[in-house]
Every structure is written in C-alpha cells, then in structure tokens.
C-alpha cells in the first residue's frame, strides 16, 4: 500500500468516482466527478477502470506529501501544480518519491483537476459508490461524506502500469454548450426560445455541485405549474425569476420547475471547467444526434494508446 498525507485541503477537494446509481428512487443523489472526461483521462493514464476513485480538486489549495513511493496521474484543469519546486502539467502520470510534496496553487486554465492512483484511491463503497456527497453524509475516505481535510490520508493498493502522457491533453471549457431540447421547452415564449439560444449567459458565482446559475435575459415559461418529477443530470431548470440553473451531480432527485432540456455529458464536462463570470452560449441539439456523438467520443478511451 502507498500513502499520501494531506497537508492542505479545502471543502472543494473531494474523493469522487462516477457516482451512485440504482438508488435515485430512494431520494439519493448521484454525486460523482463533475468533469467525467478528465476523471476518465486521469484513470486512463494509469490503466485504471475509467471510473476508479479519484480526487477532484476545485480551484487549488490542495497539498499532499508522499509517505511512500507513489505513482500518480493528473488530468483536467491546470491548477498550477508542483512536485516540490518542479511545475507539473496535467495529462500525465508521474512519481512522487517518499517525502516529496504535490501541491496545487491556483487556477490557470479550467477549474477542476483530477488526481488518480493505481487501482483508484482506497475508500469504502457506500450505496455502490465512494462519491463524496457532504449533504447526504455518503462516500469519501471515511464513508460518511467528509471532504478531504488536512491531516487525513489517501492510500491506494494497486500497482501501476507504464508511465503515460496524453499526446494532446485537451481541456475543453466554456464557449458553446449543447442542450438536448426536451422536457417543457415547448411551453416557453417564442422570444425566450430565441433568447435562450442566441444570447450570452454569464456563470453566476452562486454555483456549487448541486447547480450552476446562468445570468442573462430572463426566460418566460408560459405553461401550467408542474407536479414534481425526476430531474436528470444536466437539466436546465428555469425558476420564476427566469434565470436558468444547470443541475449537476449533487442535485435533488425530483423537482417541479420547468426545464428547457438537459446539457449533454460532454457539455457538462466543459461547464465543470468554467469559472464564475465566464460567458457561455447554449446550442440546441436533438437526442439522437447527441447520442451518436457521445458514443463516438467514448471510443477515444479505447483507441488512445
């Protein structure tokens, strides 16, 4: 077993995997890495299952020291990572010798970095996943939903494969987000439909793992009030103030606000790398086209060698 001791952390540094499934009907949220693409690449670099437990580091402020020789991999945002005094860029695996420190300073490109270890970091499986959901006291290293904290430890038991580097570590962020049109979209005013897809939206600072608010021209829903129903990942709900909220991994499982549809998984990964204040545009797509694009994208993980 190899271990890391956590010397600095924030409430935004969390152990994550793909999230909890098969329990949504019990009111249990999904959880899981917000940028699933970067999580997958971090794991891919070590030959792990793509959804093995990783550390999601949002914005920085995270430092670990190796208690033993450790093989690790980093993908996602450039959060100004250093191994001791040597800068290390995302998209590669690397070694921490005993006593060496890995620290994340501040965001230079993107918002979330993913740190992987051979076989995934050790954590108990709670309701089928070790995804940390603080609100529900589920997952994480202790199993009870605690964020990673100073003085805590991370361990892994797997053995590493070859050292890998991504030829073109891509971090897609912002710009255009694809919305699968659906749900109550037909009940918004014509002007609102035009505004939704033809104006810029600014990311509000009111953003967390439950949802991100988009600021712009208010959208007007004209349909009847809704009875609460299941909410999918990426749903864009529009509360009465007309400012849309993209619902993310830690969202509530059912809700009654009208929705325009839902972001595609690839767009969700891009959104996860956006910082407050960034501008995005929404682009309408149909479910079948988005599905084909997604399946094609997934092939990258098996083709990249």
């Amino acid at each position, binding site marked *: 077993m190899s271990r890391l001791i956590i010397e600095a952390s924030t409430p935004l540094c969390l152990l994550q995997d793909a999230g909890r499934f098969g329990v949504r009907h*019990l*009111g*249990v949220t999904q959880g899981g890495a917000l940028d699933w693409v970067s999580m997958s690449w971090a794991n891919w670099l070590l030959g792990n299952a793509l959804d093995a437990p990783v550390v999601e580091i949002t914005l920085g402020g995270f430092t670990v020291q190796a208690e033993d020789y450790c093989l690790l991999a980093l993908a996602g945002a450039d959060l100004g990572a250093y191994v001791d005094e040597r800068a290390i860029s995302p998209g590669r695996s690397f070694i921490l010798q005993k006593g060496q420190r890995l620290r994340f300073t501040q965001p230079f490109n993107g918002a979330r970095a993913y740190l992987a270890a051979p076989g995934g970091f050790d954590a108990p499986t709670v309701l089928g996943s070790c995804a940390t959901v603080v609100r529900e006291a*589920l997952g994480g290293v202790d199993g009870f939903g605690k964020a990673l904290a100073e003085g805590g430890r991370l361990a892994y038991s797997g053995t590493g494969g070859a050292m890998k580097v991504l030829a073109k570590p891509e971090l897609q962020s912002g710009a255009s987000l694809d919305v*699968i049109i659906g749900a109550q979209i037909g009940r918004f005013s014509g002007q609102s439909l035009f505004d939704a897809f033809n104006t810029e939206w600014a990311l509000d600072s009111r953003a967390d793992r439950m949802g991100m608010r988009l600021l712009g021209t208010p959208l007007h829903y004209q349909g009847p009030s809704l*009875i609460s*129903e*299941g909410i999918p990942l990426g749903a864009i709900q529009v509360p009465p103030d007309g400012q849309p909220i993209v619902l993310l991994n830690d969202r509530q499982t*059912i809700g009654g606000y009208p929705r325009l549809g839902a972001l595609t998984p690839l767009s969700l990964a891009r959104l996860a790398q956006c910082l407050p204040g960034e501008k995005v545009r929404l682009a309408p797509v149909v479910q079948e086209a988005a*599905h084909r694009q997604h399946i094609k994208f997934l092939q990258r993980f098996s083709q990249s060698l």
Partner: protein
Amino acid sequence: MKPCIEVVAIDCLMVRLFEVIAEANMPWMLAATQRLRAEFGAALVDLVPSYTTLMVHYDLTQLTPTQARELIDLALTDLQPLAQGSGQCHVLPVWYDLSVGPELTLLSRRSGLTVEDVIRRHSAHEYQVFALGFAPGFAFMGLVDEVLATPRLNTPRKRVAAGSVGIAERQTAAYPVVSPGGWNLIGRTPAKLFDRERDGYSLMQPGDTVRFEAVDHAEFIHLGGDDTPLEAQA
C-alpha cells in the same frame, strides 16, 4: 390513462402517465414500474417515480434512444393495474406533542378542530408513498384530509430534527435526518427512516402504504425516540 414519452436528457425519457395527483394512480404506477424494470433489465440505470411520472434512465452504451422508446412502448402495452397491497404497509409510531410539533396549534386553529382531533385525523388515514426525494429516505405521502391541508411555512426552519413529522398542503412526510425544512411539524417518530446498513436502505419505498400511530411519551422514548424540544436543538 394515456401515457406519453418525453425526451428529458441524452439517456433519460420521461413516461408521463397522469395529469393530476391521485391515490388511484398508484396501482398503474406500480404496474408500469414492474414492467419497465423487466423490459430494460440490466440496461436500466435508474427508474425515478414521482406522483404522475416515471423517469427512465438507461445505459446509453447499451441502447439507442429509439430502442429505449421501443422498450417503454413494450412495457406499457396492455398494462393492467397492480392489485392494492402490492407495496409494503408500514405503521410509524408518532409522539404528537407541541414540544416537537409546534404547528399542532396552527393546524388546530386553521381547521377549527381540537388538537386531539387534528392528531386523530392525521393518524386515521392510510397514506400512499408517492415519491422519495429532497433527501435520502424522505417519502412524500398523501393525501392528507383536506381540512388539515396547510401551506408550507413562510420562512423554512434552518434545522428540523430527525424523525419530525410534518404536513405541507395535502402531503405528509417524516424527515429522515436533521435538515432545513418548511413543513408544518406536528410530531416526531422514533423510526429509522434511512439506514445504509439495511437491505434496500430506505424504510419506505414508492408504492408502500403508511399509517401513523399515536404513542405517548413513554412509548416514544422506549422505542428510542429523542424528545429534545425543537427550539432546544441548536
């Protein structure tokens, strides 16, 4: 019943079965749940029921949207309502008391009933679990006697004790864990509503029925209840 299927995400379809909340929906909802689980098998990721809808989340690496629609059509073909009683029936002991259910007074005033009658009405009915949501194991139950229907508090409480039993409009529920909440509180149950060690985790599942049974303070404590008054819990 005329079900319709709506696109809601890349890998989710909403099956809309009804337009209004009614207890009579339940036998159909349960039947549809059973059939959908059977048709989708291992390709089903999650099936999220609510009052009038079932959201089908399938594995997009196994099914195309068209195939998923076909499976839903197949599942709903010749659907017959499940007989009543196919869900479990639970009896939840409740200590109805002002110290843990401060809105007993409000409900009494609004309804013109005595507090004792409010309790009697709430515990006389057998409720259906329409959906779970808000928090793990939080079951939305109904329908509460019209005379007890009361809107949510204008200002939600920052902290509602675990086990608190409340009413919002014609729904009733019990809080599985300490959380913020805006329901009108009328009592507290010692029942453990969500337990990660239990098979199935949640005491109540959609489609189950629930009856509340008034117990006195001694019985509440005997059953493991925490009688700390609401205001005293900082």
